């Protein structure tokens, strides 16, 4: 159990900076999700903690130890790989006990410990099987069992759920969260799935181009995205983003005009500024009747998902997506014009560089 500290860590592959001057502190016992699209540097960051990559510059600490130059075996971490990496020639017992074997734990003791962990993860009855003879979910558990069997100081997960089908993924998600809290171990979890990150993380670090663009609790990031990239990356469906210009107390887009009254952040803007308006689908109000300060648009698509409905409207070349909760979606027919409006406090503003505009 230990905190993990990054001090100005950079990792270059040739001329590419996969991780660019990242500083980060992961608290003892915390589950931190590294979230971002492929190629953003999240997996490299994880591999830097594991020691599978060595930092080009900067320092990495685990606990009170500077492990920057340590090889993986001296770092005392446990890692679950995306493909589970179970050894096909070893049965489950030998797979799970492998970290103990290399630590020269006696055969009887390590088998006992492996059985204990396996029982806890409900795979204890499969110990004699080979990895090829068990299901994907069981393989995933085996991989987790092997990562935790020697009680490492840090757990590392590299997209461990991406090879599972949707139903198993939900189940495994809960199981990983429970296990991590139960053991109280610091964990770093890499994913490109924002729902997974929201569900699991104590804190999320959103990465883009080798840099952490925002770090915070899932709700903090969801509610106050600091860039339009973060705003668009979290949420399903993601936040609607529309370009507009500030003009005489209004936001003027290509085919809409909204009164900026009540939008506090407006005070930080000047006439003529380019701005990106962001609104979460759940904050879009859809009305069949004309409304003041609204955008009129035809219904483009309607998806009834049960507890909620997704309505898409076409605004120029873009879709504006609204989300209605409950069993009674707004009564709008395909092609019918609806009036879309939002409360000013729900509007997110980003400047031309994509950074959040805050009120003065």
């Amino acid at each position: 159990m230990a905190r993990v500290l990054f001090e100005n860590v950079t990792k270059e592959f040739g001329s590419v900076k996969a991780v660019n001057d990242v500083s980060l502190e992961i608290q003892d016992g915390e589950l931190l999700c590294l979230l971002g699209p492929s190629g953003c540097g999240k997996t490299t960051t994880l591999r830097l903690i594991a020691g599978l990559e060595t930092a080009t510059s900067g320092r990495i600490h685990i606990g009170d130890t500077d492990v920057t130059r340590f090889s993986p075996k001296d770092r005392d971490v446990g890692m679950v790989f995306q493909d589970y990496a179970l050894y096909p020639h070893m049965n489950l017992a030998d797979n799970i006990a492998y970290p103990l074997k290399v630590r020269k734990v006696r055969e009887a003791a390590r088998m006992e410990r492996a059985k204990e962990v396996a029982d806890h993860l409900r795979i204890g009855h499969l110990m004699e099987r080979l990895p090829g003879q068990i299901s994907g979910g069981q393989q995933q558990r085996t991989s987790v069992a092997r990562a935790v069997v020697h009680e490492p100081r840090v757990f590392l997960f590299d997209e461990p759920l991406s090879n599972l089908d949707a139903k198993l993924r939900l189940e495994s998600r809960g199981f990983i969260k429970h296990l991590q809290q139960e053991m109280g171990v610091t964990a770093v979890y890499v994913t490109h799935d924002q729902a997974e990150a929201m569900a699991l993380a104590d804190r999320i670090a959103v990465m883009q181009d080798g840099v952490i663009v925002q770090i915070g609790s899932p709700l903090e990031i969801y509610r106050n995205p600091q860039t339009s990239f973060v705003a668009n990356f979290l949420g399903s469906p993601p936040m609607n983003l529309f370009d507009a210009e500030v003009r005489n107390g209004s936001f003027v887009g290509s085919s809409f005009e909204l009164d900026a009254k009540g939008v506090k952040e407006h005070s930080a803007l000047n006439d003529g500024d380019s701005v990106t308006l962001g609104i979460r689908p759940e904050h879009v109000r859809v009305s069949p009747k004309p409304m003041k300060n609204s955008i009129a648009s035809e219904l483009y698509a309607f998806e009834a998902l049960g507890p909620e409905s997704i309505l898409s409207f076409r605004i120029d070349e873009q879709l504006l997506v609204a989300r209605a909760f409950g069993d009674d979606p707004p009564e709008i027919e395909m092609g019918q014009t609806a009036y879309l409006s939002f409360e000013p406090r729900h509007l997110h503003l980003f400047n031309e560089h994509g950074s959040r505009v805050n009120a003065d």
Partner: protein
Amino acid sequence: MDDLTKRGNHILSVRAGVALLVPAFVFIGLFLFFPFIWVFLISFTNRTLLGAAAQDPEFVGLGNYLRLFDFSRWMRSGEFGHSLYLTVIFVIGSLIGQVTLGLAIAFAFNRRRGKLREIIYTLVTLAWILPETAIGFTWTAFLDGRRGTLNAILGAFGIEGVEWLLEFPLLSITVFNIWRGTAFSMLLFSAALGNIRPSYLETADVAGAGPWQRFRDIMFPLISPQFVTALVLVTLWTFNVFTPFLLTGGGPAFGSDIIAIHTYRVAFQFFEFGRGSAIAVIVMTINLILAASYLFGLKRKEVAT
């Protein structure tokens, strides 16, 4: 059962299938089975190329075989037992040399690119694919006592050279054969190691395994099928290899009289076809046992996975 399933199993009629197979069987029969049976039959006669027995060979029963396994003389120089003994040393030496060297090179350059790898792989593979006569000549020049390259190099370090081919004929042809054949093991192991998923090795690293543990527990078990393949095929090939004849001719004084050379000598230098055929039959039997054990090993591996 309806018509469809009855016919559905055959795209072609049986007759058409047989017709397509006939040419292949004719050639296999002509060039493989016929000589095999011919040799087998001759091995029970005293047939020779020249003399009375060439005209009118006599059936001698197991005479040729009894002569080969006449234990009062078979370990003498130039005899069958002695030749087998030299062959075993030659095969084991070549096998250990080729497989360990091949594995070492493949391991050293595993997941590495660069000039050095290219150069070494090219050189090792060249040794494997160059024509035999060319390399036979090259090695004769390399090992020659008075003007050989090796002795010249040793001389530069103040070491006195030896007549390698005369004083250490078996060692010379073994080293030559290792040089000649390492490429096969190297390429085989190189491909096998390259196919190991990186995450297997990284898991071992994170789990705390050192380089030796990683090799013993993960890499070697994962390439063991290729290892078995290399062991059996190299044994088979080395057992039958004739190229060392170009270096030593089997001599001096039968010092490198390995089984392929021995067979050739008896059959085509002494022209004793009967005795030569008996040796060939024994060699074929040994080959069959090796090949069968290889195929059996493959089968068992398939069942296991």
